């Protein structure tokens, strides 16, 4: 047998690693700034530095820039070693690296300026979305090409998790980003209302699953055994962990939408599958922790193992808490509160952040050929980071539970005990300061790590790994399994039969359906028993065969991940035309469309929800329960995910134009304790209604029933409605309306401004105008921009 020497491409690993460290600092620093803004509103220093603009930047930077670059470093390093092959193409690797960094720069250049699709963790506009798809496919091509070139036939479990990440993220990103462009910087989601909510949280939840979890589990399965110098506790358990997680995770998205206008069946599915996730998640967590058996003593001295052990423990805590929060009665208390923020940060800081730190401390000495500069500093990082996380999550748990309980508290004589939303906010403020301290401590620890890694790298020189591998001939490889052995094998057929039986059960009445499920399970169980007993000695099992075939393995992984998405999303797509045909709602007017875009641009959805749940305490505070009809023309939906401010689903008509104007000019004038930043800049920002027709045309393409005349006179209609609002403000509160499109010392409000537009939109929320959509008369001439009522 011949041998060959291979030099791994570790330059790309180093590049991704440093990018992760740098963007980690940036993302966490923005996190500290937004935490400060919540505790102390004057920290909203400028419109482009306000909470609504920076919060998406924080989440995107941490998820895609910090964790993204970290996972690529881990994937490139471990895949080459597990396959005994250099990455297939250095050019593709570098295209991936520079492409990804360019996307991050594009995010920094757009999000603070309000260029956003307003879908959480998918805010980037359509040209960047396309760039993400291209770069991701380049990564996928390089990855699968490398798998094809591998010299180790069997795929180690870490590689399975990477495969699941690559195929599932591709689907999630493409489907959730489907949008109709208006221009180069603006688009509307093809989905609306309930359907958009379902797609978005199918994406959002599985971005957590397949971007923040599965690749890091792959990293755990590779780096933890290496750091502990012992094999994974149970490889068999890892098989169950993998298939269980990939199949179940995708169904759990609707748990973000419990008690909303989403159909009950989808909510129930989301809750049940979330509870089922406990099993594979904890199987994986225990597998990670038990890998340390016999090596626990090393934790005293080895910071790498300290970080890994704590990281896996946080994974266990977060994956216990997630299903708990998915139970409907727990969600009723926790949803929209800071409890959710505490939960995600236990995962992001504890699991992702600590796994990243452990991997970096392990990698840098090996990538630069020198021991770590300071073990003491790494240990200090561990303790300050742990303390920071604990401070963060305990303050947010306390804040969340306090908030949830105060919202629902009813007074003895009836009515809400805390009718003013501000009362709850004031109660949380000390916790917001505590969170700021916790986050800052974590960031300080991370900066210490950056220094430590940099000092280690400077003391050494870049080293690329090398390995001597055996090159076997086709004869030595033995006969290849056929497609029949792999795809038409009994386990696949039995699984398909069982899944079909369960789907059929969905169409039967309760008792028959449950009996059918038991029958399906019995068929599956006895088939598996039969297969297991009939195993021929010396002949590889089916699973062993597919572990050696990356293409088939990828196909089956895709299938397992797709089932849940298809089962949940397809019914809503089928039902959408009927819902549109029967709705009593009317489309937004031209100015309301513009106002809605201002709402999206300013990131109002980061603090305000638009979804009133069916609870007495919600209807008493906000009005009637939200229905699917309310948001049927919302491209994208704006239900939100938290309430730092009150729900706005039925704010329309509740206050006067003057109230909204004064509130946005200076929120403290209306509520002394408000922490909302001022939006006074909107009053002077003129809108060009020439673009409105293009927006309405795009919305018509995705199903909003505008006719040609409405679109044609959209500029006139928008101006007429803006002029009415301006005239009201002038008459009611003496607001000085500008004669032109510029704010001067002599006036307070531009008529065709973002201010009048957003007021029009807010006044429309929860209201169906008795006379239909606001529209200018067909024969009216364009009014001069004087602010006078037409």
């Amino acid at each position, binding site marked *: 047998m011949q041998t060959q020497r291979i030099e791994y491409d570790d330059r790309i690993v180093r590049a991704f690693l440093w990018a992760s460290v740098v963007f980690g600092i940036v993302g966490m620093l923005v996190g500290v700034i937004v935490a400060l803004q919540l505790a102390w509103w004057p920290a909203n220093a400028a419109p482009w530095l306000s909470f609504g603009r920076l919060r998406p930047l924080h989440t995107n930077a941490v998820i895609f820039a910090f964790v993204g670059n970290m996972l690529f470093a881990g994937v490139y390093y*471990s895949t080459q*070693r*597990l396959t005994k092959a250099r990455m297939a193409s250095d050019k593709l690797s570098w295209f991936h690296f520079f492409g990804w960094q360019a996307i991050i720069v594009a995010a920094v250049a757009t999000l603070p300026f309000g260029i956003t699709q307003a879908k959480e963790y998918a805010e980037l506009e359509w040209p960047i979305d396309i760039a993400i798809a291209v770069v991701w496919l380049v990564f996928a091509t390089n990855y699968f090409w490398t798998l094809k070139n591998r010299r*180790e036939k*069997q795929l*180690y*479990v*870490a590689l399975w998790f990477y495969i699941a990440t690559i195929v599932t993220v591709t689907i999630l990103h493409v489907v959730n980003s489907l949008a109709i462009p208006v221009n180069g910087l603006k688009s509307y989601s093809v989905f609306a209302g309930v359907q958009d909510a379902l797609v978005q949280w199918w994406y959002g939840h599985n971005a957590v699953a397949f971007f923040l979890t599965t690749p890091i589990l792959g990293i755990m*399965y*590779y*780096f933890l*055994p*290496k750091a502990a*110098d*012992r*094999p*994974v506790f149970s*490889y*068999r358990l890892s*098989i*169950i962990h993998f298939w269980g997680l990939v199949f179940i995770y995708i169904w759990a998205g609707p748990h973000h939408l419990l008690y909303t206008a989403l159909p009950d069946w989808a909510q129930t599915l989301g809750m049940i599958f979330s509870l089922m996730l406990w099993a594979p998640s904890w199987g994986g967590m225990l597998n990670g922790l038990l890998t340390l058996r016999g090596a626990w*003593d090393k934790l*005293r*001295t*080895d*910071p*790498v193992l300290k970080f890994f052990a704590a990281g896996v423990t946080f994974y266990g805590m977060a994956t216990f808490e997630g299903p708990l929060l998915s139970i409907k009665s727990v969600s009723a208390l926790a949803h929209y509160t800071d409890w959710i923020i505490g939960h995600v940060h236990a995962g992001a800081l504890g699991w992702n952040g600590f796994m990243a730190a452990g991997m970096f*401390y*392990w990698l840098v*000495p*090996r990538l630069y*050929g*020198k*021991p*770590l500069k300071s*073990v003491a500093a*790494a240990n200090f990082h561990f303790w300050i980071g742990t303390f920071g996380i604990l401070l963060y999550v305990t303050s947010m748990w306390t804040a969340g539970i306090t908030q949830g309980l105060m919202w629902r508290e009813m007074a003895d004589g009836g009515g809400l005990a805390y009718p003013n939303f501000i009362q709850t906010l004031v109660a949380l403020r000390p916790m917001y300061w505590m969170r700021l301290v916790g986050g800052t401590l974590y960031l300080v620890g991370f900066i210490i790590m950056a220094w430590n890694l940099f000092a280690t790298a400077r003391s050494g020189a870049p*080293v690329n*790994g*090398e*390995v*001597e591998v055996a090159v076997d001939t086709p004869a030595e490889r033995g006969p290849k399994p056929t497609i029949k052995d792999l795809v038409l094998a009994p386990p696949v057929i039995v699984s398909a039969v069982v899944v079909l039986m369960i789907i059929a059960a969905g169409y039967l009445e*309760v*008792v028959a359906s*449950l009996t059918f*499920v*038991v029958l399906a*399970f019995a068929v599956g*169980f006895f088939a*598996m*028993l039969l297969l*297991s*007993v009939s*195993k021929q000695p010396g002949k*590889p*099992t089916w*699973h*062993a065969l597919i*572990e050696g075939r990356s293409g088939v393995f990828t196909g089956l992984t895709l299938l397992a991940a797709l089932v849940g998405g298809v089962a949940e999303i397809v019914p809503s797509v089928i039902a959408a035309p009927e819902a549109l045909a029967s709705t009593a709602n009317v489309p937004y007017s031209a100015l309301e469309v513009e106002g809605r875009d201002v709402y999206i641009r300013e990131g109002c959805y980061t603090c305000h929800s638009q979804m009133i749940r069916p609870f007495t305490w919600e209807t008493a505070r906000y009005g009637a329960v939200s229905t699917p009809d309310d948001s049927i023309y919302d491209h994208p939906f704006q239900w939100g995910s938290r309430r730092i401010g009150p729900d706005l689903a039925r704010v329309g008509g509740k206050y006067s134009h003057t109230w909204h104007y004064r509130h946005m000019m200076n929120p403290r004038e209306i509520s002394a304790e408000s922490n909302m930043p001022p939006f006074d800049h909107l009053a002077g920002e003129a809108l060009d209604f020439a673009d409105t027709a293009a927006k309405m045309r795009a919305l018509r393409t995705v199903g909003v029933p505008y006719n040609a005349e409405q679109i044609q006179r959209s500029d006139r209609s928008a101006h007429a409605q803006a002029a009415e609002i301006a005239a009201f403000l002038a008459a009611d509160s003496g607001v000085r309306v500008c004669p032109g499109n510029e704010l001067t010392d002599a006036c307070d409000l531009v008529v065709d401004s973002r201010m009048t537009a957003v007021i029009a939109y807010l006044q429309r929320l929860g209201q169906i105008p008795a006379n239909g959509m606001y529209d200018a008369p067909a024969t009216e001439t364009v009014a001069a921009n004087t602010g006078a009522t037409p």
Partner: protein
Amino acid sequence: MEVMTLLLFIGVVFVIGAALAFVVNAANGTFDHTERLALLPLDDPQDPPRHNVAPEQEQKNADSTNRV
């Protein structure tokens, strides 16, 4: 109540079934090939003999372990 009984029954069947399936599979050596795979990450001959633990600390650890 009828549904609750059925749900509990199905739950018990699933749990027992899953445990049995795991035991039978393990007993029949269905996943015996994984013994070698579990060692793959450790089979990395070019890994340099470098440590994150400072040498003096490592000596202390060794001493401490010997005492135990």
